[in-house]
């Protein structure tokens, strides 16, 4: 019989443990890159206005974060371009969309959903090239969910009176929608599908680092023969977003992004007629009780923080573990991060891809440094990182105190802060001890405990014995400084309707 595995150093600064698992290269996986052959895209994209692609005059590059090479050039929309987009949407709203029967609107939305499915592979590859997320996630989660959202809301388009019995639901008008870079196509679907189903027209601004799939979506809208102007898409930075927010003829703003920007928008809209929904940051608590299914909870922790490199507003970035099982959970986490494969987003075996942009990588590094400086214990995967590209090793901290920056601020990267608790009351108190309130996870084999703790969570989305599960039928949104308004489900229609 063969010898015991060799000694491994498990925790920095801790003595060697005699017994440990070795995750090495005895049998390695060969590279399995997804072919980019079938993917075609332009060198430059302007904006999508009135059903046509129009050029801009100021251009900037969107970089592939895995290679640091410019991928595509995009135009920056100024106020005049935004005005053109809003006017186009207003015209389309008055001329076609608000007069159209719900069942007719549904046909367009169903068609968009089907076309996303038909072009799923192309969209997934582009999403991974532009944003850095692993192909297995864009292929299995982002793109199918985006299609599912269009399918789901297409079904509501002719049933709005049944969604809100007794009311006379009417569309609001022109919606300005500003979306982030972490789920570019999916967030576009979350915004457009309910707005269109409810009878509104949209001006959408994708994030400056991830415009590509929005431009592909524009091609789909064009091919689907959506009446010109029903959806306009403008590219640009925060200035472009501000022009949308401040445009006088926009009736509603839907924003997903940082809490800081959300606050600016809310201030800007104070006293205007415009409606607002915000889906902002989070510092989700993932609570592990001692009676939890431990091995599955560890998978849930991994999924909660390393899914999409941790660029997830509802990430389970604060792990709260009952003290009696903390040592076990931490040891298992230490093993599990060694088996995460970090690297080329287009490799089908990659678990953690590239950090979306250089500034984001710097922000993550800065917060991790602060964790070390403030005395928390850093645990990191020993994996090799590619020589080029923005990558960060899966990381978790123990000995974290609630006053540490890494316990309070949203890191938006593959970094987890582990804290312990002793009683359910303490777990509730610690979980709610944050200005945010987007998500929480609870792990226990005891159903009564799950429901009790869930009821006490100040968070919009709560998962029991799982994490990061999304479905178009389920409303999603925040408490406290994580925002207001719900996306998904019947609730997701409300921000886009006047219920008379």
């Amino acid at each position, binding site marked *: *019989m*063969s010898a*015991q*595995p060799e000694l491994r150093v498990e925790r920095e600064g801790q003595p060697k443990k*005699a*017994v*440990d*698992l*070795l*995750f*090495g*290269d*005895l*049998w*390695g*996986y*060969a590279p*399995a890159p997804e072919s980019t052959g079938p993917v075609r895209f332009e060198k430059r994209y302007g904006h999508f206005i009135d059903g046509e692609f129009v050029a801009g005059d100021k251009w900037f590059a969107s970089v592939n974060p895995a290679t640091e090479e410019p991928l595509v050039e995009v135009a920056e929309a100024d106020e005049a371009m935004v005005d053109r987009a809003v006017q186009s949407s207003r015209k389309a709203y008055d001329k076609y969309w608000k007069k159209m029967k719900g069942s007719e609107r549904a046909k367009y939305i169903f068609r968009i959903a089907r076309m996303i499915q038909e072009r799923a592979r192309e969209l997934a590859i582009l999403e991974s090239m532009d944003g850095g997320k692993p192909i*297995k996630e864009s292929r*299995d989660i982002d793109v199918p969910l985006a299609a599912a959202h269009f399918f789901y809301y297409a079904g509501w388009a002719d049933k709005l009176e049944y969604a809100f019995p007794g009311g006379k639901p009417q569309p609001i008008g022109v919606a300005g929608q500003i979306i982030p870079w972490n789920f570019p196509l999916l967030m576009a679907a979350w915004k457009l599908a309910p707005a269109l189903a409810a009878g509104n027209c949209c001006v959408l601004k994708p994030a400056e680092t991830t415009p590509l799939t929005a431009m592909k979506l524009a091609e789909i809208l064009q091919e689907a023969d959506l009446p010109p102007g029903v959806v306009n898409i403008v590219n640009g930075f925060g200035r472009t977003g501000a022009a949308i927010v401040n445009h006088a003829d926009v009736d509603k703003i839907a924003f997903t992004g940082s809490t800081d920007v959300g606050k600016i928008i809310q201030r800007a809209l104070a006293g205007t007629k415009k409606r607002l929904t915000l889906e902002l940051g989070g510092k989700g608590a993932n609570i592990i009780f001692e*009676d*939890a*299914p*431990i*091995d*599955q*909870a560890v*998978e*849930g922790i991994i999924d909660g923080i390393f899914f999409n490199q941790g660029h997830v507003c509802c990430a389970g970035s604060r792990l709260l573990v009952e003290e009696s099982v903390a040592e076990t959970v931490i*040891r298992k986490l230490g093993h599990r991060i060694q*088996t995460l494969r970090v690297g080329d987003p287009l490799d*089908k*075996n990659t678990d953690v891809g590239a950090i979306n942009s250089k500034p984001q990588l710097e922000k993550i590094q800065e917060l991790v440094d602060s964790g070390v400086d403030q005395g928390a214990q850093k645990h990191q995967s020993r994996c090799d990182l590619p020589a080029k590209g923005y990558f960060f090793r899966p990381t978790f901290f123990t000995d974290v105190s609630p006053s540490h920056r890494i316990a309070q601020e949203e890191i938006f990267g593959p970094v987890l802060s582990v804290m312990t608790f002793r009683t359910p009351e303490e777990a509730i108190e610690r979980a709610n001890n944050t200005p945010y309130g987007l998500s929480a996870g609870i792990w226990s*084999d005891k159903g009564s405990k799950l429901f009790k703790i869930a009821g006490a969570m100040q968070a919009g989305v709560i998962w029991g*014995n*799982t994490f990061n599960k999304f479905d178009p039928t389920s409303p999603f949104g925040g408490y406290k400084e994580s925002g207001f308004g719900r996306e998904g489900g019947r609730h997701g229609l409300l921000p886009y309707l006047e219920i008379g």
Partner: protein
Amino acid sequence: MVKNPSSYVPPRVPTVDEVGVKERAAEFASRSIKKAAKVEGLKLVVRMMDLTTLEGSDTPGKVLQLCQKARHPIHGFDDVPPVAAVCVYPPLVKPAKAALEGTDIKVAAVATYFPSGQADLADRLDEVRRTVADGADEIDMVISRGDFLAGHYGKIFDEVAATAEACKPAHLKVILEVGELQTFDKVRLASQIAIDAGADFIKTSTGKIPSAASVPVTLVMLETIRDHFLKTGKMVGMKPAGGIREAKDALRYLVMVKETLGDAWLSPDWFRFGASSLLNDVLMQIVKEKTGRYQSHRYFSVS
């Protein structure tokens, strides 16, 4: 040994969430194993194989053919290694042992009144001793599922411990027959009891009932092995058996072992496949990787 079964305290094992286990199992299946990694993996699968025949119609002649196949799985591909073991009924141990003389291939035998285990413990132990005396290197025993499901855990511990003692110096594989235990919680408990009682390997199934090895149930058993190793430093082996017929499935198991227990278990000393029809599909894939073509079934010898 537990002298008074009623005083036996079963081990505390973590609960298992079925949904979570199945999700994790599906992740292993999504790994893309191609080219060199595939060939290396498939050769490892051959080296880990317990080439099995467990039929009422087995004869010494049939076993001889199986042993030939075990030594030289395929003609003309010298880099395809021999299998780990052949697995037969006790009366066929002697002919198998003779046919494999001079090789490292082990002879495993299913003793303890396989597959039901429905016999007195004394009779089962007697069969084990005779089989080991005949030359078996490994004994695959079955637990009494009836006793286990009735909650007589002390009895299970005792019979495994007694069999482990009786089968020395042969290695003991303990078959839980997971299809009859049904829930992952029961599988986790049975795995721990078997390990505590001295199992060298734990094994999913007899292959005699429809519900046999699966990736999720094997994962639960591997996790038990992992926790035991981290607690005690003692390595225990794993053998999924029954229902693994395709090379693609076998590679999924290897992925799971690699990512759950690590490199130390990627060895025939610690992981085995119990299978009768898997070998030819693995060989077909190896030949395909070398030649670029799938060959007809006719080119692969029946065993």
